[in-house]
């Protein structure tokens, strides 16, 4: 029997994978991929809990998360394009102008 815990653990695993990506990716585009993983992981959890409680709020949350994810992609890519036009690189290490 697949319980809620199964889904939550899956969520945890996926979220952790996302964190790994966030921490190790230095290509900004691929770093954004990792953030998508984070949101997707949470989506699974929400739907599972929603199902478990028979409550729709979770699904709603998921729905909006998907919307947010889509918006983020648009803005994020826009920023990346700007940066790329200016610097010719989307490597994270090129973002070193400001520090200290």
């Amino acid at each position: 029997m697949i319980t809620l815990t199964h889904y939550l653990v899956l969520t945890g695993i996926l979220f952790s994978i996302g964190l790994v990506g966030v921490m190790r990716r230095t290509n900004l585009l691929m770093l954004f991929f990792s953030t998508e993983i984070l949101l997707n992981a949470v989506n699974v959890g929400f739907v599972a809990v929603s199902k478990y409680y028979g409550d729709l709020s979770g699904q709603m949350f998921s729905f909006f998360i998907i919307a947010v994810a889509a918006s983020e992609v648009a803005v994020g890519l826009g920023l990346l394009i700007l940066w790329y036009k200016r610097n010719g690189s989307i490597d994270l290490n090129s973002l070193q102008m400001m520090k200290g």
Partner: protein
Amino acid sequence: MLEPISISMASLNLPALLPMAILVVGALGVICIDLMAKGLNRSFYTMITVLFILLDLGAVIGYNGSIRGFFDVMLVDGIARIAQVIILVASAFFVPLSLSHRHFKEFKMAEYYALFMFMIVGFQFMVASDNLILIFLGLETSSLALYTLIALHNRAKAFEAAIKYFTMGALAAGFYTLSALIFYALTGSVEIHQIEQVLIERDFEPLVGVLAGTVFMIGALGFKLSLVPSHTWTPDVYEGSSAPLAGYMSIVPKIAGFVVAMRLFEMLVLSGVVWLEYILYGVVVLTMTLANITALVQEDVKRMLAFSSISHAGSMMAAILIGTTQANSALFLYWTLFMFTNLGAFAMLWIVRHQKNLWDERYQHPFTKFSGMVKIMPITATIMGVFMFALAGMPPFSVFWGKLYLISAAVNSQFIWLAIIIVLNSAIAVYYYMKLVIYMFLKDPVSNDAGIYATNASTPLKVIVGFAAMMTLFAVLFVEPLLNVITKYVIASGF
């Protein structure tokens, strides 16, 4: 099968949505005008924006409906209203900073103003709800708009700032959703008041779950409030943004964040989750101290102010930690006073902005830039000095009264050590504020040309700075009425 649904319009309480609607209309209107008439002057857009903000403000102040609205998604309680007023007032003052002497590309774009208004809408939703979904959406709306606004400054540094802010924001969004998930899993609800109810019913069991949810929420809000260790974006983003936006960022997103934090954390702290109290204590102390200490060694005024605003935010978290009515009132009082002072400080930076980095390759506003300013522009230097003293918590300038009230709240709730840490931090902080004063007043000028300092000065900017200076100087006179209003609303909303 589904029942037909009948909903009375009155129960929706649509006026609660009116303020946001006004700005949405404004934003859309601005875009439409841009489509129809190209090349309108920035002053037009600025003033239209200010007008809409004022209308919005009127709607917020004039609102007298019930607290709940629209299927209980909206929550227009006291703190929501105060926070909105602060957000709108701050916006109304920061937007006109676009009317600088120099012309900047972004201020010519109608999109800038539209995004600005959308951003405000996002913040307003954030504070006027206790539904985690709506809060999330508000947060994201405002954040996305803000990232764009930063990038619109169109400098390499601005892009860098925007990307850094964006990426960290995405991670924070992940934390937020995970936290919401945990709370949802715990309680089956995404509304803070219901979460509270269920948690209390179950006596916070399983505690580890509650704490995990809290931890991720600290992560998410901590990013917004720039709490250590999620604060690292702050100086870079402030440096990369234009001064008006940086100043804006030091005030408005944070007050929105504080309201959410207040709704969520205080509920937990006051219900006896000691763990959170300890953690918040630690975070508060760490944030204040670390930011202060790092600010000491900054070479750029803007970065210094960034660290200083981190530190101020840290001491505001103390208000949430304390959690009494007085502390919460102190938070809003402090932030109002801090708003005027920071408005002044950043507006000053905006005024003295120069096209080229004449003083330092790396920094736009290095301390050396301000050397001997009192000899060249005595009044400017004096006003800047007043802002610095105010930020340092020097009596009788504005921030002092906020700090006083906050420490008083701490003392009255027996948080003596917290109070001591706060004041010790202000003793450290005074050094870096003083550093600017020392540069301005006690060093010899590098150049005697007043022109290079005032390249960006214009009448609107001067008026704004003058207003901010007045508010800073004579804060003592309006602390009482302000406090009365704030306390009234804070009590009304049960905090």
